[in-house]
């Protein structure tokens, strides 16, 4: 008993010493449960967004983070992005050692002003103020404070204080201050507690708090927002962008504003109008007309990123694209729309969040979440979507880049949130036929012909169009998990179709394709399409998981055996079914030929966490079935 007391006292004494010295960032005060597994701990994080006038807001950020080891190094650096519509008014920083004593303060000269332009972009207004400390005596703490004034109120901040899986959090607050009488639109994600709302004489405050968050591991295939941790997205009801007023209560409001911003920028020079009309002259089918116009755009323009103009939301006039032959996604969509209008086909600009595995917009929270523009052409029965920055794909194909997600149509009546096409397994095929000749010593040659369609054709299409033959060959070598093989020849051929379609033909040599032991040969009939990469296992999966696209793989292998070789043992047909799809494999003898058939269907979707183990098991069984061998004898 006595001993315990002494220890207790000592601990008290340590704590009081730290607090008496006024050193709040001493490392000793971090609770052990927070530093466990963390590379940095956010000690305090205060983020305030204050709307001053309909056209001006300030954002004040103050935080202190203790960096425990080298992996947390990036927190010693601060980057504050800004643009033509915003101004960074002050940056302060202090470095504390493990005891919480000040080591250094940021000087004016330590703050760099850098361009935040991406390398693919021709020109953008985006810049970044960058500052930080070079220090590596772990653990240590950095504290930063800065203020940004924004001269546009179209975008309110999103607050996710713990997006990093190696960051623990002691205490964080987020405040939005609005002039009295106004109210905030917000959406809470990942179990952030509800805000406290306080009405003062001149303003209303919304206040969120988050305390004592341990590190949380990311899980593979989790939906985008899940891995961001608890947080909130906010948006205005009314806003201003470069002296233009808009509303954002509904998608219709936001869409109307953006429609008006881009309206009337579709005049084309007369010769081009005539060219467009000539192009479709005599054509009655509207789809063919669209294809011709789209083909013309693909032939005569190229994508160049130029992020300028009204906060990056207004397109260049169509006439500029006509003159220069290039434009960004807005300019090219608008230009294509202008050409279609010329030939009497109405269309609408549509905003999306583009990217293969990115977040979709939050459909129940109208706000400016988009990063890309495409064109939507409504027809009598269905709709044609045009990705105007891609020079290769067939008209109407949006694929994994913008397919299967929400899009905001900009129409004279306002915005309409609709869905872009999603693709079924039959759309995304890998259809393979292998003719293999096996000699008595186990060497083989094979001709492999594969037709790829839809999303499964995307990677190969890009290799076909952009890589040199050397790189194509190299790429092919990476694609197959065959232990030893040499590609003797290969070719790619594009097929005209409504979906991207590529036929790949390869001739390969497979030395010791079947391995001999004594007078037996072991032969795996699925040499080419074997899928052996398994998903990571978790002891306890907590988040839902997403299979992004559906697909269908089918293989037929005709293996011609050398004279004298016979099958001693094949295998029983395999049939695996699960909620994620279906797998079949079988082998049979046809004269001197072994015929192997395999078919795999995967269904895209968002699946519950408790089904993850089932998914791993499904893939594991497929991997095993793909390795099944038959026994040959002579």
């Amino acid at each position: 008993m006595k001993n315990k007391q002494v220890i207790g006292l000592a601990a008290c004494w340590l704590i009081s010493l730290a607090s008496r010295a006024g050193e709040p960032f001493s490392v000793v005060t971090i609770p052990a449960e927070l530093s466990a597994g963390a590379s940095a701990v956010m000690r305090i994080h205060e983020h305030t967004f204050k709307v001053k006038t309909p056209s001006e807001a300030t954002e004040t950020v103050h935080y202190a983070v203790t960096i425990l080891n080298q992996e947390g190094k990036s927190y010693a650096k601060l980057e504050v992005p800004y643009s033509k519509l915003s101004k960074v008014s002050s940056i302060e920083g202090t470095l504390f050692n493990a005891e919480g004593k000040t080591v250094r303060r940021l000087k004016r000269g330590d703050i760099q002003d850098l361009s935040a332009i991406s390398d693919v972009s021709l020109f953008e207004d985006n810049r970044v103020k960058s500052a930080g400390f070079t220090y590596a005596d772990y653990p240590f703490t950095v504290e930063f404070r800065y203020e940004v004034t924004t001269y546009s109120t179209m975008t309110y901040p999103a607050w996710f204080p713990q997006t990093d899986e190696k960051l623990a959090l002691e205490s964080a607050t987020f405040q939005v201050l609005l002039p009295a009488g106004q109210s905030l639109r917000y959406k809470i994600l990942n179990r952030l507690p509800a805000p406290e709302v306080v009405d003062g004489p001149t303003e209303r405050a919304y206040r969120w708090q988050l305390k004592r968050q341990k590190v949380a591991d990311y899980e593979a295939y989790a939906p985008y927002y899940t891995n961001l941790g608890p947080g909130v997205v906010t948006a205005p009801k009314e806003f201003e962008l470069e002296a233009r007023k808009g509303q954002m209560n509904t998608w219709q409001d936001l869409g109307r504003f953006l429609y008006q911003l881009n309206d009337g920028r579709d005049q084309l020079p007369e010769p081009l109008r005539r060219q467009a009309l000539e192009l479709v002259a005599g054509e009655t089918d509207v789809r063919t007309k669209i294809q011709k116009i789209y083909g013309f755009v693909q032939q005569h323009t190229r994508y160049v990123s130029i992020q300028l103009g009204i906060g990056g939301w207004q397109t260049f006039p169509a006439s500029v694209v006509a003159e220069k032959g290039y434009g960004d996604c807005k300019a090219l969509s608008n230009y294509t729309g202008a050409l279609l209008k010329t030939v009497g086909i109405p269309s609408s600009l549509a905003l999306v969040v583009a990217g293969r595995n990115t977040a979709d917009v939050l459909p129940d929270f109208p706000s400016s979440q988009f990063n890309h523009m495409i064109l939507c052409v409504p027809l009598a029965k269905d709709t044609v979507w045009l990705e105007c920055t891609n020079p290769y794909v067939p008209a109407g194909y949006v694929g994994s880049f913008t397919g299967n997600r929400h899009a905001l149509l900009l129409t004279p009546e306002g915005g309409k949130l609709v869905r872009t096409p999603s693709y079924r397994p039959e759309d995304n095929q890998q259809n393979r036929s292998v003719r293999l000749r096996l000699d008595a010593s186990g060497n083989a040659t094979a001709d492999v012909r594969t037709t790829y369609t839809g999303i499964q054709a995307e990677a190969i299409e890009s290799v076909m169009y952009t890589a040199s033959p050397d790189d194509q060959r190299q790429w092919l070598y990476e694609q197959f998990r065959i232990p030893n093989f040499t590609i003797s020849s290969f070719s790619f051929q594009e097929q005209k179709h409504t979906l991207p379609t590529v036929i790949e033909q390869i001739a390969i040599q497979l030395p010791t394709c079947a391995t001999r032991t004594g007078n037996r040969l072991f032969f795996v009939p699925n040499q080419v399409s074997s899928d052996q990469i398994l998903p990571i296992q978790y002891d306890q999966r907590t988040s839902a998981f997403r299979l992004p696209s559906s697909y269908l793989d089918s293989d037929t292998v005709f293996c011609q055996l050398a004279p004298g070789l016979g099958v001693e043992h094949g295998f029983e047909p395999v049939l695996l079914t699960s909620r994620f799809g279906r797998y079949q494999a079988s082998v049979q003898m046809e004269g001197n030929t072994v015929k192997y058939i395999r078919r795999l269907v995967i269904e895209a979707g968002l699946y519950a966490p408790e089904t993850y183990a089932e998914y791993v098991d499904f893939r594991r069984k497929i991997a095993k079935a793909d390795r099944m061998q038959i026994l040959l004898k002579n």
Partner: protein
Amino acid sequence: MFSLRLANYWLTLSCLLLSACGFSQQLTFGQIDYNDLTMRMYPADSSAEAVVLSDIGKTAILQNDSRGYYAEYQRHVRIKILKKSAFERSTITVPFYRLRSDLREEVRDIQGSTHTLLADGSVKVDQLNKDAIFEERRTEKLYIKRFTLPNVREGSVIEFTYTLTSDFVFELREWDFQRDIPVRWSQYELNLIAGFEYRILFQGFEPLAVDENQSSGTMIHYRWAMKNLVALREEDFMATPDNYRAKVWFELVRTTLPHEIGPRNYAKKWDDLDKLLLVDSQFGLAINRTGFLKETAATLRKQSADTLQQVTAAYQFIQKAMSWNKRRAIYTEDGLKKAFEAKTGNTADLNLMLVGLLREMGLEAFPVILSTKQNGTLSKEYPLLSRFDYVIALVNWGGKDWLLDACGPGLRAGVLPVHCLNGEGRLVHIRHPRWVSLSPIEKRRESGQFLLKITKDGQLDGSITVTQSGYAAADSRQVLKEISLEKFRQAFKSQSPDWQWNELVVLNADSSYLPLTIKGHVTVSEAVSRIENRLYLRPLPISDYAKNPFKSPERRFPVDMGVPIEKVYVASYTLPEGYKVEEVPRNIALALPGNVGRFSFVTGVEGRNLQISSRLVFSKAIFGPEEYGALREFYNQIIAKHAEQVVLKKTDEK
């Protein structure tokens, strides 16, 4: 690979005759050869997405009253665009620097146009307008001019010119003849005025089509050109493609300028460079300012009387006290004391500090400068400081050089990280400088021991011990520094997803002196397939030899594996009751020519015990293109051997 010419103004008269007959290629802006417009495919490389038709650079050192000496670079480029994938090449970026008002660069006279042959046979010409030219401030000092050419289509020829003037006359820009697309003609002209003497260095495998120089008045004029250059592409197992690129660069040797008294020498011989470095406040002098390490030195000295242990203690001290900021340099950034206070610094900060610490301890230690693999091959013939990007520490003891790099974690003292193993380094010393070999003295070693029981229902059950040492252990330790032990174990487990681990421990993760061991118990439920009364299994439960790392049948450049490899796996199986070995893969021993690589595979059966061992050893890491075929075939055979099967047969069913 290298050749040298001294650009000496006084030596050129004799060359006059030679050069008078060289043919000259002058191009007028806007006059495009009709054949280049009709070209649909580049005959020499039918796959090329674009071809540099001509790339002509003209550089002169000039002088005027307001600016003093400055360099003027003129560039005139024509590129044929053959495929859509090359459209990005019509956006041109020109980086330039503004340090101070009297030390700056400027880009001016940008002109550009796109020439496209139309279906009716006419040629459409689109000019580059001012509104498509942007200037971007990338950092405080680095600026970028960026412009994009209009209306580029498949088949277009784009053309542009610009002039860049620069106050940095002491550092002339280099000229790359070769690019990642084929180049039909690349020409570089250099006009020097009296007073500037440069060393001119060539690199690459391509011959010069034009090589001339002539003088007129006080000027000297050079012209070099190469033609029909193939595209240079990066390959696997290649340190840097820049090692093979055809290019020319310039190193200032001497200036003899009117306002200076007598000629002023820039680096000359290696000895001069040594001296220059030793009096440099960011190099030699910095090593002398290590008073702040005195106490540490005294403490470390007391720990052991053994010199090697003292060296190790100093090496470990710096490794522990400092963290490397991943920057490679031979000069310290803000001095050693400041780096020590910040606990971080570049290579020079860490390793010069190590030299200083060793000296404070009374040991003879020296800095050794080198060029890392990524920085390219060093030429000993031409003393150039700018070719070095790294410095390490050296202690000679017991007749042996101990090379120390405090930036390379996880390796024992005396073993250098892979990026340092690039030819030779230069020991910088006032009286006894010398070249030091940077060959690997350690290997990438991994051994696996498998004690497994085969059950009747085709399951493997037992213990696995993987022991890594040398570079293999260092690599794992590096990973362990970046991810948690838990993640490391997870990653190890996911290498063989079929294995069910009952236990998995990692031993000696922190020590660089003991091998790193990963061991545990596994159950592999599907390793053995049963067909009727026989069981079949692969000889070793490893995935290392599942695929040949050398895929292409041919190779143009050397293969650099970094360091030599040694891999030894031994499996000992207990057969299930009632089974005996029917077939095992035959023993083999293979060797590469010159015994630089050896592989052996041996099996042995004793009662119910089956033993299989596989051993692969290399004695070198770099293989020439002529050795490539043998190396690939060597791997083919190793992989084929590991794919063979062991057959077990039930004994009671004869």
